[in-house]
């Protein structure tokens, strides 16, 4: 008897109902549910840009799944007209791992927040990155607990006064990108809700990457932590405070692109372009360089900051490398077992080794 239960056969069977990919517009990805975030919430732009990006993936809606945990951002799947699961607090990476490993044919997105992924689900978050399951994770970081109405989160800065920290938080925060790099994430990037163009570009890049794509999105919570990222999102301060990373391009920033970052050994330095330094002297961005990625992830907590140097916050892809995905490895093992271990004979399995007859 042939083995009909193997995963690849299963997938094949379901590919039979694949029709030609429709000409989707972003509206095709909006569900019939009313969106219930606070007016002005950064989540709206993220939803919009995800819906805008979807038609460009070239993937049928039926093959897309959004999985979330708990929190404001985790309501996201309800608003997408794809398959979706709003699961339990912090566990979306684990659920997504089970789904993607058993159904590698699906395109799986994880929607999570700083509370969901950096505290209750920090274990699953890091294990997902370590395993490099081929899924995309959008981390909505607003540095606050919104849904439970305003407690500090593991991403809130030390000293932050919130409902649960009336005298200021004494917790040292997680640096999500450094944490992701530390967990050997194969794709680590940052964007913000207030730059829709860059946001969409990063969503598409995340999809293209094979492996776990970790995209941190600075998202403004208008009610409990308004303006947390204003320095980077405000058009006036942004040129000074944010630096957009592009592959093979020097690290240039400033109102008139008049500043840059150069490396003095392993020490980043801010330099004025012109008289003493030209673009040729600057640090050239290389997504495949993990040492540089680690430096970039820690720009704002760099020791040089102690000397009154304010480094610009990097946005874009800090790190992107190819390495084997967990789900591919699992499928390969099943395939190999099927090819090399002979027929899957259930009766032989039940019979086992030694038997005896009673007459």
């Amino acid at each position: 008897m042939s083995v009909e239960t193997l995963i690849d056969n299963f997938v094949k069977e379901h590919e039979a109902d694949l029709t030609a990919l429709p000409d989707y517009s972003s509206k095709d990805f909006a569900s019939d549910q009313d969106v219930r975030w606070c007016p002005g919430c950064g989540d709206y732009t993220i939803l919009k840009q995800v819906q805008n990006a979807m038609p460009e993936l070239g993937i049928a809606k039926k093959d897309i799944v959004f999985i979330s945990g708990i929190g404001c951002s985790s309501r996201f799947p309800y608003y997408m007209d794809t398959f979706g699961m709003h699961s339990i607090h912090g566990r979306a990476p684990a659920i997504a791992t089970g789904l993607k490993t058993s159904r590698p044919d699906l395109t799986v997105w994880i929607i999570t927040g700083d509370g969901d992924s950096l505290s209750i689900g920090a274990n699953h978050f890091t294990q997902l990155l370590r395993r490099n399951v081929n899924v995309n994770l959008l981390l909505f970081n607003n540095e606050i607990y919104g849904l439970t109405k305003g407690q500090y989160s593991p991403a809130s800065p030390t000293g932050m006064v919130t409902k649960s920290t009336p005298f200021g938080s004494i917790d040292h925060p997680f640096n999500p990108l450094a944490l992701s790099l530390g967990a050997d994430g194969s794709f680590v990037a940052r964007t913000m809700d207030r730059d829709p163009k860059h946001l969409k570009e990063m969503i598409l890049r995340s999809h293209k990457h094979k492996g776990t794509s970790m995209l941190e999105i600075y998202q403004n919570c208008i009610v409990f932590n308004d303006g947390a990222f204003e320095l980077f999102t405000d058009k006036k301060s942004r040129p000074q405070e944010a630096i957009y990373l592009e592959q093979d391009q020097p690290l240039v920033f400033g109102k008139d692109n008049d500043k840059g970052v150069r490396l003095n050994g392993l020490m980043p330095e801010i330099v004025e372009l012109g008289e003493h330094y030209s673009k040729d002297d600057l640090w050239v961005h290389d997504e495949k360089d993990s040492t540089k990625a680690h430096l970039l992830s820690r720009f704002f907590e760099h020791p040089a900051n102690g000397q009154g140097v304010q480094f610009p916050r990097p946005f874009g892809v800090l790190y992107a490398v190819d390495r084997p995905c967990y789900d591919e490895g699992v499928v390969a093992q099943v395939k190999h077992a099927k090819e090399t271990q002979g027929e899957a004979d259930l009766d032989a399995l039940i019979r086992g080794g030694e038997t005896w007859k009673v007459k």
Partner: protein
Amino acid sequence: MSTIDQIRDDVTIRFAGDSGDGMQLTGTLFTNTTALLGNDLRTLPEFPAEIRAPQGTVPGVSSFQLQFGSHQILTPGDECDALVVMNSAALKANLSLLKKGGIIIANTAGFDKKNLNLAKYPEGINPLEDGSLSDYELIQIDVNQMVKEALADMDLGYKDQDRSKNMFVLGLLYWVYNRPLDSTIDFLNQKFGKKKPEIAEANVKVLKAGYYYGETAEIFSSRVIVKQAELEPGTYRNITGNEALVLGLVAAARKSNMPMFLGTYPITPASDVLHGLAKYKKFGITTFQAEDEIAACASAIGASFGGSIGVTSSSGPGVALKGEAIGLAVMLELPLVVLNIQRAGPSTGMPTKTEQADLMQAVYGRNGESPLLIVAPKSPADCFEMAFEAVRISLEHMTPVIFLSDGYIANGSEPWKFPDSKDLKDIKVEFEGPRHSEDEPFMPYRRDDRLVRKWAIPGTAGIEHRVGGLEKEDVTGNVSYDPDNHQKMTNIRRDKRDNVANNIPLQEIDQGSESGDILVLGWGGTYGSIRTVVHQLRKEGMDISHAHLRYINPFPKNLEKLMKGFKQVIVPEINDGQLVRLIRSEFLIPAKPINKVKGRPFGVSELKESITDLVNNKIAPAF
């Protein structure tokens, strides 16, 4: 002294030694040989939770007991006829389990000053020499010396020599109980033959040396013959509960034509389920060793959402961690099989000791009204059928099912008349099909008359939908906080669970009449002890019957009527009274408890005494 042959109906033997002495392997090999000879049997492996507890001490003792016989054997035996002790700690820990007049085979090398000290015998006291064992037939052998001599012509290090000494006692017992050596020799050659042929050779030599020592040394007054048991005709194999469980899962995957996904985290005594399933990838089975118990369960739910049979395996502490995720599966109405191989609790408890104290956890141990299904195998081999049933019910009813095994039946073994796969039920799975834009919109929580929704898996066009842990609106599955809807959905989830009673067998009386004075109602691993006791009491003229529950939530439809046919219902359990409380609250029947929590199954004589005393009003029920 000449040896005479003595025919016995049944024999209980116990191998005991230090954790490193290989007693579990010795017991298992004796069991396999005995099973192949056609005896019925039951085993009880007992070992410390520590991998290598301090050598030579009482906490480090590992034991393996088996009863085998020429008639039906349902328990590993209360007291042993023969006790093998490899050191003084093993004697100290196990002597109370030996019958008066029983045989002690003691390795004298384990009774030197150092070992006696480690076992905490008083200074200057050696139980082998002080006459304290005069009630027993004491056989003293310096096994270490025997092994050394047997291997004199081989160039083996001390460690390898020492490691083969369990084969000497195994060989000796094979001689005493008239067992052939070939199955064990085959095993040794298979295990070591290729990589370490000298180790295989040494072990076989020592095994034979033990056998021939029995034959020539004339130290035993008799040699025991236990004839074949009159088992039902058919082909048999020996199997442990966890092995049978694994096979039941694989069989159910095949019979449903579905891929299976096990998400799990190592825990005693459930890890063998992972070890077993991990080998069967060619049957379309994926195993995932997750980062924790929660992720293990969550990954299984993710796989189930995608159209696999999601399975998660654990023991009580792990199931406690999975609770929230199990609740999610209840809300999502997805298949999920949760395997709980129970152990003594609470908290970490006694990981390698058995208990049945997670029944209430299975029924009630989640937040909110969270009804699900519970099945419980009654013996090692029954794990096959009940695992199959767990998958069948889960898939056919789109619901989580908890499978409650325990350490005793998981590690214990018995002969199994295994089925032919073509005789196993087919499992019907219904998927929601693709829809076109002109079709009626898909309603994820639309149900059939059994209240079961269809499995709607990603990859199916036109049925894109969202599920989640928030309360669902009836039919549409949209998020709803409507008070009446919550009442309705709570009722639906309960009724859906109760409807499964139409898809499980009616409760049967295992032994005795359909009505009468006393019904002993058991569940799970107590089956063998209860059956044996009820058999004896019936022979002695008591009007007593036995029924054993394998489906607990919901109960079989006829259970109430059946229990009401008896004047008294007695519920023995290895816990502090859980099924008995469910029975009382569900049916208002004054069922009486018999409970024990010592990390071991009921002994036949103790259970018989408890039941007799309760029936004769010599003792009042504990509550």
